[in-house]
């Protein structure tokens, strides 16, 4: 019985890696371009956006919450920084002002959820709608063209031959891993998701931690907003729409429980890499995007199913 459980556990832990390896091996036979350095860079560049977003999302979901507003924060970041640069502002100042805006968005989410005790889904659904509205109203629905070369570098430049978005992704991954696994903050995140009342009785400032988690998620959205605006050289009010769904998907595929308390960032990292690989492979195979969605959905079901199996059935 326990042996069976152990098997399932191993399958769970390494299952995603097996699936990823399987795709890589299969694709290197099927497509001559797949293993080229250009395509690999391409994959990494594509996953950098969802990757950074998923890191923040994992923290939020581990506390038992959800953040639907990240897509709107991406848009706000784009239009605010875009408009400032369009009217001749310094690119760095534009980034910082956009950061402040995202901090405010995160703080509003966190305040609504931890102090006013809104349900996270409702709170962030509202701020998602409001945020998108603000981005559209501010820009009057039109994109701002960005031409500042320093800013564009964030999305298109290289350092030591590595694209900057990939470096940023690495930085966020490492910072996330350190915070979650090595600091007291990380422990409190797990404890709040597992049992908020017990955490409080143990002296954890549960409200502050919850608030911080939403701010963290917004900061990730800010980073994604900058990379996206720089990559397409424009700050668009419609940018980042439904990005939250891919971030949630990566987190779920990575084995994080939607009710909080259980999960890991390494899982999420596997999750978004797998999603990226799958997208890229299906594009190379010229699979219609309609079918791509079906495959993505099935992957989530499969991953969550394996997860339940590995934990053993609850009666």
């Amino acid at each position, binding site marked *: 019985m326990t042996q069976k459980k152990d098997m399932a556990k191993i399958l769970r832990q390494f299952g995603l890696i097996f699936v990823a390896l399987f795709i890589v091996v299969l694709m290197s036979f099927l497509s001559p371009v797949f293993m080229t350095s250009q395509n690999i860079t391409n994959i990494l560049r594509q996953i950098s956006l969802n990757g950074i977003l998923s890191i923040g999302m994992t923290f939020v979901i581990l506390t038992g919450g959800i953040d639907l507003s990240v897509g709107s924060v991406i848009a706000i970041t784009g239009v605010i920084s875009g408009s400032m640069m369009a009217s001749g502002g310094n690119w760095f100042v534009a980034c910082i002002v956009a950061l402040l805006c995202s901090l405010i968005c995160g703080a509003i989410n966190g305040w609504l959820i931890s102090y006013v005790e809104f349900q996270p889904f409702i709170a962030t659904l509202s701020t998602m709608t409001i945020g998108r509205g603000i981005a559209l109203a501010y820009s009057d629905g039109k994109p701002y063209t960005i031409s500042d070369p320093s800013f564009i570098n964030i999305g298109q430049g290289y350092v030591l031959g590595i694209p900057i978005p990939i470096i940023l992704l690495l930085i966020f991954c490492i910072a996330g891993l350190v915070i979650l696994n090595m600091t007291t903050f990380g422990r409190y995140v797990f404890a709040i998701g597992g049992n908020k009342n017990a955490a409080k*009785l143990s002296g954890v400032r549960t409200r502050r931690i919850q608030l911080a988690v939403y701010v963290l998620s917004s900061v990730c959205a800010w980073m994604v907003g900058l990379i996206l605006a720089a990559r397409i050289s424009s700050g668009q009010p419609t940018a980042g729409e439904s990005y939250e769904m891919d971030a949630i998907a990566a987190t779920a595929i990575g084995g994080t429980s939607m009710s909080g308390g259980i999960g890991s960032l390494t899982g999420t990292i596997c999750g978004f890499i797998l999603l990226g690989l799958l997208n890229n492979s299906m594009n190379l195979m010229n699979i219609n995007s309609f079918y791509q969605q079906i495959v993505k959905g099935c992957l989530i079901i499969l991953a969550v199913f394996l997860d339940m199996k590995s934990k053993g059935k609850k009666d």
Partner: protein
Amino acid sequence: MEDTKYILEAKGIDKSFSGVTVLKGAELCIIPGELHALMGENGAGKSTLMKIIMGIYTKDAGTVTLDGKDTDFKSARDALDAGISMIHQELSPIPEMTVAENVFLGREQKKFKGLPFVDKKELNRMTQELLEEFGLSEFIKPDMKMKDLNIAQIQMMEIIKAISYNSKVVIMDEPTSSLSEKETETLFRIIANLKEKKIGIIYISHRMEEVFELSDRVSVLRDGQFIGCVNTKEASREELINMMVGRELEGGYPHNTAEKGDVVLELKNFTRKGVFENVNLSVHAGEILGMAGLVGAGRSEVMRALVGYDHLDSGEIILEGKNITIKHPKDAVRNHIIMASEDRKELGLVLCRSIKENVSLQNFDKLANASFINKGTERKLADDYTKQMATKMNGIEDMVSSLSGGNQQKVVLAKCLLSDPKVLIMDEPTRGIDVGAKAAIYNIMIELAKRGIAIIMISSELPELIGMSDRVMVMSGGKVTGVLEGEEAASQQKIMNLAFGGK
């Protein structure tokens, strides 16, 4: 009494849950039109017996007969249809529905036979009739939303709902616990009305005065056993208390030989409106202070307010002679006032995380530098402390949910001890754990007292309170009704008398 025709007769009821005997030969016989009080200490098995009568639990042995016929209810619904209804302590109305809809929930009058259209007019008319019958039509209208009623009115509606099932027996579990005096009067009027209708009432209450005022007979349970049934008129308060207590002191309580030191903690005028009032207490180093009282006496609430988990309206905390303020459990932990909660699942542990993480959760002051966890120290201390408690585990990475109740409790204690408590509050430290683990926890408590820790133990088990405590403080209805010392503290009668609010 031999020829009395009982409407409900429960005899020789046995029930055990996973090996623990809860009822053993329990008995209860109800005459039509009587109010029959059921009394007993916390955990005597009153609620379990009621749930068996209602068909919510299945009995292991014994018979329940209604109107002379054996019953075999599969669910509370069967019991309702047969004529037994229960008004629970926790009411569960559907707030957005009207009074009439709540009363007739699940058996609505249909407009047309076989079609799912509800005849609201007819429902309202039937409800109005019931309201008038009980003299409630002045305050309650059938089309009012349930959420607009106050607690007392909701309770009245629950009773009316029970009667609308043509119940022959109505069970009331602590019906007055949330009522004001005036509301209680209305309830008593309704009860008189029920008695006239020859409905048998089983009345569970912890209030002696009420029992004497209202009841015709009283049955007492102790340790799941039927102790006796007396006519209220012929019984005295002392007699009833004597029947309830007298649980065997199952020997084997280690004696607290620790030397008592200075007062460590003193509480003055602790008040939270509507929950507890002007509670004063003091506890010495090396002392075990027992807190006795019935469910709802406010003992846990006082302690939860002390550690900052619940709000406190007013009161002073004096720790080692200094006034301190505690606004959040963090402040309590910093001042080394540590609480091990009764409810391990709800407040004590994060079940889905490891033993190690649970032990370290409130102790990062010791285990982390500038919020970076010192993993070596963490592992070592978590291992040391859980081993000191003799926790049975494969290792400290085990999930807490995989441990037995007794071992979970040891993890809670390990976590509390790592915080170097000056005051350790143990709320029902042995609830739901087996005999062996209990003995281990008692020994740990003595060990801690010897280290000079002041221990406050809340317990509903009289033998445990008497066996372990140096002093016993008794609460009733949110107030301290007495502090017993020495010989006095060893008297179950005295404790119970105070727990019932007596002098």
